[in-house]
């Protein structure tokens, strides 16, 4: 059973606009959430994370929002750039730090 879900397999956005990637989870024991970015033929690269004690974390153009009551998090990229085109994975962990990944969303930023 998939504990972390990314229901949008793909997203296309114009350069300069906002990209919003969504993620839902089912396990209320998860207390740490991460976003990874993956280019073809490379491993996932850590992008940004958020602890369950926060509802927002920002790092440059990337902001992650956490809504614990809805078991939902989102990644906002503003402004989007062509180099942001990649597959984005949402991941969650509990006390053991074992990561549970979603199936990924392929973001295409159109110049």
């Amino acid at each position, binding site marked *: 059973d998939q504990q972390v879900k990314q229901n949008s397999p793909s997203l296309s956005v114009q350069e300069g606009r906002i990209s919003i990637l969504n993620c839902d989870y089912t396990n209320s024991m998860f207390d740490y959430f991460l976003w990874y970015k993956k280019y073809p033929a490379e*491993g996932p690269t850590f992008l940004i994370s958020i602890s369950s004690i926060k509802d927002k974390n920002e790092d440059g153009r990337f902001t992650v929002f956490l809504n614990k009551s809805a078991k939902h998090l989102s990644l906002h990229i503003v402004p989007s750039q062509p180099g942001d085109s990649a597959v984005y994975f949402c991941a969650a962990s509990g006390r053991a730090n074992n990561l549970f990944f979603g199936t990924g969303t392929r973001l295409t930023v159109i110049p």
Partner: protein
Amino acid sequence: EAGVVQSPRYKIIEKKQPVAFWCNPISGHNTLYWYLQNLGQGPELLIRYENEEAVDDSQLPKDRFSAERLKGVDSTLKIQPAELGDSAVYLCASSLNQDTQYFGPGTRLTVL
């Protein structure tokens, strides 16, 4: 600083043959993970080491898969014998204690 190193990057074998993957984690990282990523899916944990101890191998198919991290640094994941369904990308990650995990480039296995 060097990242997680994995080799080989690609491997093609016939079914029923053995195969081994090697991982060298980031220097100083005591926790090492092996993940399996099937096409169109996210990575799934196979085994987690803290130093040389396998602390979680509940998802490792022990009939054909084995792993070792003898000196608490680099690690080897082995499949014997390989089956067609083992075709996937095998990812290694490392972290300092239970902090952020950093991934290697992976080994893409094709079983014919």
